[in-house]
């Protein structure tokens, strides 16, 4: 027999959070309307709560922590055969509710010690495997040196295969005599994605906008095309979190007689999701 437990969502308070999510929802709905037919889109009821995600414990026991962190106290255990409802995830933790209504957190990997309604182990891929990163977006930031100027950059990438990814790079370089901005598109190849320190090479192209300091002589802003060749490495830290160090050789195609070569060094971190 199943005991029905009343949902204790504080809807009015949650609405606040939903407002912030509206923008995300709008873009998501655009995507959805493209994939699903128009009819489906309008008949979908967005506010129906999803069916509860229930699993049955298939190990001697699973520890339940009172907060999502390894140091928090274990205040409960769920035993073999017990049905638990998975409520939500936060980093590597899953919030659960027992049949008796006790709420707590279990480790993400402990969900592999349970069985879903179909008798199968739930599908929670191992984040430490290289193939986990396929078909995923990557967001990163890096700090470094661009020909003497301080550089700060962000990159948004998409990984097609284990080895190949593409990315958009935006950089702001702040120097003593001039500031510059780079926007570029690059392709990266990572020959050994399963290594903890995994090297990569890349090529890219984009534009470089240079803005000389106004305190000096009045010089106009310049816009040049650049070609980039890069060499670097990803260092796996934990889960989806990587350190990334990179050297970029920028070849600036100027409108003057000679082209310029600029060396760029940076260190930053990247996250896959």
């Amino acid at each position, binding site marked *: 027999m199943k005991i029905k437990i009343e949902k204790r969502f504080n809807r009015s*308070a*949650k609405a*606040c*959070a939903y407002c*912030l*999510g509206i923008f*995300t929802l709008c873009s998501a709905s655009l995507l959805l309307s493209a994939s699903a037919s128009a009819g489906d889109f309008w008949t979908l009821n967005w506010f129906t709560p*999803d*069916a509860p*995600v229930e*699993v049955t414990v298939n190990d001697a026991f699973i520890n339940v922590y*009172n*907060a*999502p*962190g*390894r*140091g*928090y106290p274990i205040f409960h255990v769920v035993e073999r055969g017990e049905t638990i409802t*998975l*409520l*939500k*995830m*936060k*980093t*590597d*933790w*899953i*919030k659960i509710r027992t049949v008796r209504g006790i709420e707590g957190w279990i480790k993400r990997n402990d969900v592999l010690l349970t069985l*879903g*309604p*179909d*008798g*199968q182990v*739930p*599908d*929670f*891929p191992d984040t430490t495997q290289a193939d986990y990163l396929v078909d995923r977006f990557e*967001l990163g*930031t890096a*700090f470094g040196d661009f020909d003497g*100027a*301080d550089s*700060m950059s*962000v990159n948004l990438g998409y990984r097609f295969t284990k080895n190949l990814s593409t990315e958009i790079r935006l950089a*702001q370089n*702040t120097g003593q005599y001039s*500031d510059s901005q780079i926007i570029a598109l690059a392709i990266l190849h990572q020959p050994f994605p399963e290594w903890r320190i995994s090297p990569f090479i890349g090529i890219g192209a984009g534009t470089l906008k240079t803005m000389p*300091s*106004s*305190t000096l002589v009045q010089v106009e802003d310049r816009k040049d095309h650049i070609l980039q060749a890069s060499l670097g490495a990803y260092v796996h*830290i*934990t*889960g*989806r*979190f990587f350190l990334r160090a990179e050297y970029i050789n920028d070849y600036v195609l100027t409108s003057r007689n000679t082209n310029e070569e600029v060396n760029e060094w940076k260190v930053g*971190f990247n*996250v896959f*999701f």
Partner: protein
Amino acid sequence: MESRVQRIFLAAGLVSALGFFNAPVFAADDKDKNNDGELGKIITPDIERRHIKEADLDLEDFEVGLYYGVLSVEDFGSNAVTGVTFSYHITEDFFAQANYGTSKTQKTSYELLSGGVELLTKNQRELSYYNISLGYNLLPGQVYITDKWRFNTGVYFVAGAGNTRFAEKDYFTYNLGAGFKFYATDWLLFDLSMRDYSFKHELFGNSKKTNNLESRLGVSVFF
């Protein structure tokens, strides 16, 4: 001979007729058997045999928030600062955080004492900054207000870099800070923190390194 042929046809006709009428009857029988009585319910319980995937769960790793505080800009007074913050919690230990804040600076002591001197125009007194930082939750903990009433807390460190726009020029800025998080619920938190923004400028002629302290109180939601 004739009767024998007739008999064959008759038999064939009967069989086919029986088959025709019986087929749906058998099918109906099968259905009835399953739903029949208590036993049927036990044999085929009404469970949706779905496969659980990670994507079925709501992931609350993003945090968006607003903050208000005091930013002391070296030589330009202590000023109110407001900003927005966006974080992504990578693991239970690490998070990446983007901040954007604005403030309006005051006159320097020199400008006030000398009377008419104006170092900066009104627009140049506007200060804004952005940065991307990496944070580490160093001391996660809990506070116990009563026997049953507890809240999660955490002390964190954060370091990063970005740009400060001041006097209509960008300055590369390092930031270092620490803060205290108080989780009112799983998804709502208050954040009391301090940051130091360090950058060099040449507004007074020579290059000068400045340290600008900010204390702030923020509220964030996870989604």
